[in-house]
């Protein structure tokens, strides 16, 4: 069971801020593949991974990062703070 969070336009595109997902995926990329199969909104949101960033347990990582022991995964566009 992993909490999946969405921010900014990813949140808007998917239409959720957060959901709990049952997954056997071993990496973020595997999770993305599963999520993308959940429908058009998801497929669209995840259609270009180059325009997405991911945090696993609140740490910025790459899409090939392991999900072993992960409790929270967040997807969002490149940050625009400052």
């Amino acid at each position, binding site marked *: 069971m992993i909490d999946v969070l969405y921010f*900014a336009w990813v949140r808007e595109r998917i239409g959720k801020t957060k959901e709990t997902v049952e997954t056997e995926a071993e990496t973020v990329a595997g999770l993305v593949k599963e999520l993308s199969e959940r429908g058009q909104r998801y497929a669209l949101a995840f259609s270009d991974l180059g325009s997405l960033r991911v945090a696993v347990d609140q740490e910025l990582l790459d899409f090939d990062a392991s999900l072993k022991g992960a409790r929270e995964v967040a997807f969002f566009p490149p*940050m625009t*703070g*400052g």
Partner: protein
Amino acid sequence: MNVRVQTEAFDFGLEANNFATAQTDMGAIVTFLGIVRNLEETNLSYMDIEHYPGMTEKAIYKITDEAANRWSLGDILVIHRYGRLSTDDLIMMVATASKHRKDAFEAAEFLMDYLKSRAPFWKKEATDQSQDWVVSKVEDESALKKWQ
């Protein structure tokens, strides 16, 4: 080190003075202040800043720790707002204190470069025409290269 992520407005001059006064042997203080501006020819009505509660402060402390490791600093202050802001509102500020001006300058610029694209904030600008997420700039990503 002091990191504040808040919706409330802050008084730049007051924060800058408090920061400078709190130092005892740091002779060089550098501050950066970011203000909401109507830079494009569009007519900005307001800006919404979203962030990632839980991760945001952690990510900022990671950046300030890195700055403290790389430069000789007496203190660091970071204030970053989220929520709805209007033109002329203060978005965020950074302050660094060092014995040497070079350290204070470089650390402040480093903090800004990393806060810009490594702290989980996202800006959405609303004009009378539309609402658009601010797109990250290639320059902002390449600005990080000089610190690597």
